[in-house]
């Protein structure tokens, strides 16, 4: 029995043990259950490949529909890197192989690099972020730019670069990276990407930008950026693919095995699974949120599961319509740009198309 304040650990607890917890703890228990389902393994492998040193990719874009589990995969990927570097970290107490930050949305008109660098500094455990001073080299003379209040953005940038180098950081994960694309004027996007590319080049760390399909817009900036970027698609489970339907059923069965309420053994019926896949647009994250809501309802209504609890927990038709439309549009947008979909035939076709277009223009 754990106290309500401490989070129950699903790794060390069976469903039967979880049944003896308080209602609040059972919700916490189920919320912390995370499945390494096939799509996650697939994306993790791609991420691992794209962030390996000397692959030529400096920025990896992880895109997917909302609720597919992008934030979960960020945590998984972070843990995977930490596990791979555990021995080195024990030998070198200064090493931080991976950091994960959320791109800030400060409500200002433009993207706040100051807040972003502050967050990177926090993730790197960098002290004295308000006392950073920029070194200026002018006419062969080095001097520092004295500041009275806070650090300038240039000083923060230098500090983050220096810390990334000294902490030997290999991967920087930026969640909600679409905030970079907000309120763009003129060539701001190009400047943003240049700054990110510079940070990656200077420190040798690979950047993983995580966000919705809007991130795909970064590829349209310039050929140079496109060459250095790779798109990794975190796809939902499609209802018209047999393998996806089966995988989604397995996911549901696995969740049911950890569903901490009596009578939940009936949960994964095939018919329900199919309907639930459509209602959740094939996204595991949405499925889990739905199940958490249903669990909360069930516990309030008598602590015993009935299939009727599932329906009030589902997304509304308007929500499903909006998410589904966005997912379809996004999937169409990234089609042909995802890493691993290249072929000689496709390349040759593209070259010919470009030649024809160039002749037509001439």
């Amino acid at each position, binding site marked *: 029995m754990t106290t309500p304040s401490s989070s129950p650990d699903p790794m060390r607890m069976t469903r039967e043990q979880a049944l003896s917890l308080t209602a609040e703890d059972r919700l916490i228990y189920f919320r912390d259950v995370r499945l390494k389902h096939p799509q996650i393994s697939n994306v993790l492998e791609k991420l691992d490949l794209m962030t390996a040193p000397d692959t030529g990719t400096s920025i990896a874009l992880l895109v997917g529909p909302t609720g597919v589990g992008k934030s979960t995969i960020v945590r998984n990927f972070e843990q995977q890197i930490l596990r791979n570097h555990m021995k080195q970290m024990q030998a*070198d107490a200064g090493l931080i192989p991976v950091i994960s930050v959320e791109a800030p949305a400060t409500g200002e008109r433009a993207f706040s690099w100051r807040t972003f660098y502050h967050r990177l500094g926090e993730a790197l455990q960098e002290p004295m972020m308000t006392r950073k001073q920029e070194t200026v080299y002018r006419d062969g003379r080095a001097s520092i730019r004295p500041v009275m209040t806070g650090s300038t953005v240039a000083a923060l940038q230098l*500090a983050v670069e220096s810390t990334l180098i000294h902490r030997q950081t290999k991967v920087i994960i930026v969640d909600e990276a679409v905030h970079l694309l907000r309120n763009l004027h003129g060539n701001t996007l190009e400047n943003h990407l240049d700054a990110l590319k510079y940070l990656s080049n200077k420190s040798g760390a690979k950047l993983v930008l995580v966000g919705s399909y809007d991130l795909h817009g970064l590829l349209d900036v310039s050929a140079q950026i496109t060459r250095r970027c790779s798109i990794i698609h975190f796809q939902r489970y499609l209802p018209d693919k047999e393998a996806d339907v089966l995988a989604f059923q397995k996911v549901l069965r696995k969740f049911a095995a950890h569903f901490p309420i009596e009578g939940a053994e009936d949960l994964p019926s095939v018919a329900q699974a199919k309907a639930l896949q459509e209602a959740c647009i094939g996204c595991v994250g949405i499925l889990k949120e739905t199940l958490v809501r249903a669990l909360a309802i069930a516990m309030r209504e008598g602590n015993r599961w009935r299939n009727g609890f599932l329906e009030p927990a589902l997304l509304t038709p308007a929500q499903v319509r909006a998410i589904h439309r966005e997912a379809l549009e996004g999937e169409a947008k990234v089609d042909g740009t995802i890493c691993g979909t290249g072929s000689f035939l496709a390349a040759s076709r593209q070259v010919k198309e470009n030649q024809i277009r160039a002749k037509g223009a001439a």
Partner: protein
Amino acid sequence: MNTSFDLVDQEVIAEDPQQRMPPRSALVALKPLGIGTPCRESLTSYFQRLADAHCVIPKVLAREFVIPQLGFNNRISETQADRFWRSSFFNGMGQVAQDWARVLGDLTSIKGLASLTLVPLRGSVGAQGTASPKRRWCPLCLEEGVRAGTPYGQLLWEIGCVTACPKHCVKLVDACGCPSGEKLNYRKAKFLPHICESCGESLVGRVDPELEAPSQDEVGLAHLVGNLLASPVFAGSLLEPKVNALAEFLNEAVRDIGEGNAECIAKILNVSKGGLSDWRHGRHLPSLPQAIHITRTFGATLAGVLEGTKYEGVQRVSPKSIHFRPRRAYYRRANAEGLDCRLEAILRANPPISVAETARRLGTSTKELYRLYKELAYAIAARAKVWKCEESINRRNARLQIVREIAEEMTAAGIIPTQKRLEDRICEIPKTFLFQERKACQQIYESVWGSVMGRPLH
């Protein structure tokens, strides 16, 4: 890449404490340079590089991070914090060096930072005169460091008796040669081993080291000290050497060479019998140059003696072969040759230099100069004093002119010039000057305001 989802085993994954980030060092784990070589890095250089790695100035790092760990009850200012790491005893063998090395080691998780100071020699040699009072460097070593991308300051340069670089056989340099007009405001000074903190220019290639070649003795001494720094005495495992190693060595020398006669050994070493007795019985410790001289005289090395190598009756040394300290009269005559001409040249030098600087350049003391060349020394001193006064007046006038210009600008913009506003706008003038000259500044504000606005300031 997995294409069939059935192949993937679905498992529950959760936050595993074993996979979380273990506690990291508070400061970056910067590796000290030149470890195990005669070119071992000094703690001052390490501290400067550490501050640079965090993009802060050393005094901020000292005040915010190190000094609180040293157990100071009262919060001290940044200027006071500066006094620690810029002092000559920072790389010495005292408590300050030991404490700072320990705290920096804890903060960076780098072990054995005490070996970047002379702490390993503590208890073996005396501390007096060990540390160099001035910052010195070898331009060629720094040049090599810049080329390799890691310029750093060596512990060897911080030892007072070392005057030459054993690697390049050039004299160590202690002045960048930057004219006073090019000096940076202290607030803008950049502290790095290869940068002049006065003018901000690189110390590489500023002074031609071939102008002054060191003597064989200087190079030999530098080699011996360098070998000592590269020895296991300075390795992490042997940071506490044998305390009475030198006393034991002297006792063995008295027994084996002097056949029990300490006076003979005292004569060989050119010291008094009482002094030798103090060393032998641990009442006083010989200084580092003296310790090196003792061991060199008897064909051993200081590193070997401190490591505990037994004296094995090396070749008997004849007292005649020992280089005795020259007598004072001889010293005076030897140095007198050509000094007149050099002093006269210095008297005509522009800009004039002080008697202390003259003595330093001629390798003698000011007392000696005043005693031997009274008239010339007084003339040099008077000329330097007049020049210094003129410089001071010129500097004051120039600064007041800047104050006037800024006050005129502010008045033209309709802003009342005040001391506080001036302080915020002027970077190139120290605040202390504005404070000391506040009356003159106030007069300037009033005159400028009156002339432009046609009415008094208040």
